[in-house]
């Protein structure tokens, strides 16, 4: 048995349940992001943006797969949303109606909604880098590294919205704030990370690292809104 699985096997029932719920929420968020980026990768504003979106979709779905691996292998839990994307097994009966999510059909709205969820999920992963559950800590570290360009993409795309009317930008900024609240509700990460810290599963500074990460994104975004 590997060291990592010994660590997972040694989790208390409460720690196991808490981590499981957080991983399920993160995997669902990643699947949602992957779906949106994949939906837009043939209709973005430029071929360069489309290629970036395709890469981001692959990474998000890959991250969801990593969460699924931890859930299945270590926590003996089903993998959520593994049929988010069309696979060879089910492509013939796939339709827009059977898709697990709805594509956000306006570019600026998609960008702010995904940026808010991506930033919240990545901030949560930033906190999980200090997890004593080693396999999770290692994977969180790698995912945060890969996410840096997603956040840059979101923030720099917001900067291109400077050409939009002032009222539209104000509405989008309000949409972003609302999406942040929804992302927090979806992930319940402050509550969950606090519980994990109390259980000794995270370093005492984990919540602070999460908050600092989100503040950094907010600062860059404030600058981008102009």
């Amino acid at each position, binding site marked *: 048995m590997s060291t990592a699985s010994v660590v997972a096997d040694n989790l208390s029932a409460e720690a196991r349940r808490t981590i499981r719920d957080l991983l399920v929420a993160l995997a669902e968020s990643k699947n949602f992001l992957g779906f949106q980026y994949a939906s837009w990768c043939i209709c973005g504003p430029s071929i360069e943006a489309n290629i970036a979106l395709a890469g981001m979709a692959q990474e998000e779905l890959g991250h969801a797969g990593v969460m699924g691996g931890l859930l299945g292998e270590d926590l003996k839990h089903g993998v959520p949303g593994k049929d988010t994307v069309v696979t060879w097994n089910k492509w013939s009966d796939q339709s827009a109606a059977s898709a697990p999510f709805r594509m956000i059909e306006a570019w600026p709205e998609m960008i702010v909604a995904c940026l808010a969820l991506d930033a919240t999920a990545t901030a949560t992963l930033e906190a999980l880098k200090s997890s004593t559950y080693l396999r999770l800590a290692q994977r969180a570290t790698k995912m945060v590294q890969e996410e840096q*360009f997603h956040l*840059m993409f979101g923030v720099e795309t917001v*900067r291109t919205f400077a050409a939009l009317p002032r009222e539209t930008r104000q509405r989008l900024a309000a949409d972003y704030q609302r999406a942040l609240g929804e992302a927090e509700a979806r992930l319940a990460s402050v509550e969950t990370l606090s519980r994990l810290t109390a259980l000794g599963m995270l370093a005492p500074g984990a919540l602070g690292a999460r908050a600092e990460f989100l503040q950094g994104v907010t600062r860059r975004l404030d600058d981008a809104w102009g």
Partner: protein
Amino acid sequence: MSGLRGQVFWVFARRAQTDPFEHVGAVKATSEAIAYVYARMNYTERNWRDMCVAPREAFYEPTPESR
């Protein structure tokens, strides 16, 4: 800066700190920052250590008439 349609940026990258930068391609973007993001996410065929972009217009090349 060009309008929303953007301008061409050349992309340079290297695999090790001691390697010279090589010209790996170009992206069209509305700012240096988004050009960098596009470059990072478009030119992924190699594991580049460093990457940078520069506006095509920043490079001077004499025309045959001016030589």
